[in-house]
């Protein structure tokens, strides 16, 4: 079983985490075109390479981001959301 480093709880078995999908910043819902919105809602990029994903440590409901290489299946780093986005997203 893989290990993942949780920024709050440290190294844990991957079974302790919930996968939250690719990290997509939300386009402005009022202004974006239908195509942009459909792309955001229904499509994942499925990148072969380095991806940024949402992960949650289930027991503590702690969400963070993980950078993962989908080719080598290596978790490169994990970080709190605040580290990526210094300002709250409204």
């Amino acid at each position, binding site marked *: 079983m*893989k290990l993942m480093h949780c920024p709050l709880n440290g190294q844990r078995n991957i079974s302790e985490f919930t996968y939250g999908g690719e990290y997509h910043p939300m386009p402005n819902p*009022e202004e974006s075109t239908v195509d942009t*919105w459909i792309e955001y*809602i229904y499509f994942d990029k499925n990148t072969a390479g380095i991806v940024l994903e949402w992960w949650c*440590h289930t027991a503590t*409901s702690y969400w963070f981001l993980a950078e993962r290489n989908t080719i080598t299946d290596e978790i490169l780093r994990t970080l709190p*959301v605040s580290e990526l986005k210094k300002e709250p997203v409204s």
Partner: protein
Amino acid sequence: MARMTKDVGDRIDRKTTVNFSFDGRSFSGLAGDTIASALLANGQWLVSRSFKYHRPRGVLSLSGDDGNTLVQLADEPNTNADRKLLQQDLRVEPQNCNGSLNHDPMAVLGLFSRFLPVGFYYKTFFRPAGAWAFWSKIIRKSAGLGKLDATYLSDGYIESESTNYDKQYLHTDTLVIGGGYHGMKAALDAAAEGHFVLLVDREPTLGGAMNLDASLSELRDSLVAEISAAENIRVETNTLCNGWYHDNWFALCSENRLYKVRAKESLVAVGALEQPAVFRNNDLPGVILGSAAQRMIQHYGIQPGKRAVIIAGNDEAYRVALDLVAAGTQVEAIVELRDEPSALAASIAEQNIRVIRNAEPHMALSSSRHVSGLQLRARTAPHLDPLSDYEVIESIDCDLICMSVGYMPAFQLPCQAGARLIYEDNRATFSIEGLPKGSKIVGASAGRWGLEQEEPSPNFPWPIFPHPKGKEFVDYDEDLTISDLINAVNDGFDHIQLLKRYSTNGMGPSQGRQSALASARIVAFATGKSVTETGITTARPPLAGVSLALSAGRSFFPARRTAMHHWHDAHGAVWLQAGTWYRPAFYRSSPEESDQDCITRENRQVRENVGLIDISTLGGIDIRGPDAAEFVNRIYTGAFKGLKTGHSRYALLCNEAGVVIDDGVACRIAEHHFYLTATSVGVDRVVQQMFRWNAEWRLDVDIANVTAAFAAMNVAGPNARRVLAKITKLELDDEAFPFMAVRQGETAGVEARLIRTGFVGELGYEIHVPQHLAQNVWTALMQAGEALGIAPFGVEAQRLLRLEKGHVIIGQDTDAMTTPMELDMGWALAWKKPFFLGKRTLQDLEKIGQPRKLIGFTIKTAGSPVPKESHLLIDDKQDKMIGRVTSCAYSPVLSQIVGLALLEDLSKSETGSLIKIRCDGGGLVDATVTAAPFYDPENQRQKPDDSFINETTGTFTPVSTSQITASMTTSTSDRLHLTDLSLISRQGYKGSGAIGYLQSQGAEVPDAPNKAIVSANGSMIARLSFEETLVIHADARFEFVPPPSEITSVYFLPRAHSHCCFQLSGKDASVALSKLTGIDLTPENFPNLNVAQTSIARVNGILIRSDLNDELAFYILTDTPSAVYLWDCIEDAIKEFNGN
């Protein structure tokens, strides 16, 4: 008897005889014998019949690596006789033979082998159409190995004879797999560096290949002594490392325990497997590996034969010869395949053993299903052409042929972890490279030979000797010969992976352990590629078969119980499991009452009088803080900013795609405090999503899942107010407590949140109370309603009641595509809000219109069958499916069938339209589209009787209860002590101001999450996150004072009722818990006052190490409804530590 008279055999006890039977005949062996060794000691070489041709087969490796010795036990098929220890009166039967083992009529198939080429079934039985359906029944009958005796699954057997199988997590610095010379050396080196070492070996004793060489016994004994003297080496013998997964995660199978091991580093020293030579009749009983002969002698004191011939491709062959001589076997000849003389030639000459050069095996001869000689021919160059010229030189009579021609590194385990095999032509051996980080491979498993000094490779490059008549077996399991592999290549399956699937090479019980090397060489030769290019098929876990019992072992099935569980149980509840929750489906008043009668009775009870239902499973979420209204407004579809304090509103939750995913009621408890209900099954996911959104929004709110903290009940029916009035001081008339209002006040002596709702379509009050006090309120309600004839009702009646009102259940009446518009719930969408989840998508979807609609329907025809969920709506003119039923039941109060359906043909959605539903058996039933609610469409029944005046009677002195009742005995022993501390005081402080507030109160707070501090007044402060702490006070009467209202950003969390609390103490506490959680809790790695929030027996929990004086002890907390479940899990896990 083949047992030697002198006292050799390190695994047998010559004083203890064990009787058993095989193939209906009685035998006796010795204690320590395996089934195979005991049979050999009795001269019984024939053990099984082969899979395809039913050829006689016997011991090949005696190490359990081949598939020749699978036998049938009464309760276990496919048992490996090489490894299974003999037990008194064991009944052993051969497998895969028709008739008897000695005379199997199916053996005639061997004569037709030329008509049964590789891929025979694929090529033969596919024409005409349907042929396979016919032939497969006959073929399947003749194939297959052991038989499972299903009568052993009967309850009586499990009770009386079953063994307890268990699972456990282990953590180690270094895991050494294989306890041979290199494994022991590596273990000692790692231990000397201060590492904790786990050393595993599948054999009963350490020593590996040293156990087969008497001259190495001194070296072995000194290493074993060093190992047992080392304090930080734990040895597990009889334990097979069966799987190697990501990040040094291993599966170890011991006899009845599965260990899941996480190692910081790993070292593989699993050695190599000896390989057979490939020549005609190499599968005869009596043709064995050289190492098998040594096992017979060294382990079991058995003389392998009277007259032996040894096929020699290395010096090992000479050691085998000397061992055989010492065992009293006459070694007739050594057939030396190599050109250069052996280093051991002199000692062989001393024994007058004849060494034959310039010859190679032509075929083994047989008599009475046993080898009777070896025919030799002049040496040939490597070839695969079966028709090449050959010259038979001589035949040597013998009853034993030993093959010592080379080894294959035990590659399966490292290759599971991603290592690659490289063939070195100059050494004729595979070696291994590309191991994952943090692991090493040494010794023969790496393709390196020798102990202190490296020795030359023992592999003879081409021990493959095709015969014009074939039957040179490459894969014994599947009866595959050289020509089978060549034919597969010629059929176009020239890649080793394709060839495997086409020919089934390596797919039998031995998984290619004896065939991979020869197959690679043969296919490489046939295709003109290198052996490295040809390679070996992918190795995947498990390495060897795992018994179902071991996989099943300790399994966890979380179950949650409400605070009133024991009451329901005592009052005839028939249980239903909803998600993890136990809920009463209904209450049976007498054994004669049918399920349907119970539901009907409870339905009428609510419609006509008053009923009480436990709705504790309903999700509860507290949203508190300055941004609470803004947060709820963004999450849910409705408008909540304007919701008045003391009121509630229906709350619908969509995802970003506009699909309805949950619903509930949003109550505004205070300006900055919302209490939301959510569906029982959905609440965990809803809360998780709330946390995810606020990770981005970072609004100043606290989100708390208080489902476990509050128990809830709904008192509903025309007489609901009369009952409630007796136990609450709250005003209940329509003006003081209108529909959808929320009130807080003392009810049955307990501070409660009351919501006036109408889910079941009658006057009803939901009462939400701290769960440890809930039983008081329930009992008070039952007593208050006794005179009126109150009765409890269950989930089934509630489902029917809400269906009569046309209320939808999210997840039952909706699917993964359902939008609010399809549910006709456009009214729940606050389009004017700047944002809510799903808004933009719903705006776009509304423009294109809805493809479906949820409609109500009724069936008035008397005696009509009741459609079931997912029965189809049919347009019988076009013979087309136009929708499906989502809920349906017969309503006794309406005397008709009512239901909801998702309809795709909107032309039929008008009230009064006729639709047809295909029911069980295929008949069509006519139904009429009818607008919901079916019952009381004007909502007249939800008003209280205001002519009536409150009359609270009596005083209430509620008592806190734990779910762990006194009848569940506390588990005590000398070694472990489990105590329920659920009634001691606990409090959570959360929010950006929480840490500062506690410090301002003089408390010392740990400086990092997952640490705890014990303060001077005896309370413990555990820091759970950057902004959250849990305070435990040993005194049950200790009352925590909420922070004064002017202090913001500190949120009080009701931990005493949300979480149960156990204490497990004793020196084995870590070991016991390692059966329940994957966290490393060993005292060295989890120091006192450390905190772990993790999964314990598959429920989320908090572990705090808090030693009692000098005794190891842990607090274990989990959500209260899981208390009984977790208590049972811990009690079961500590059983083995009870007593001494």
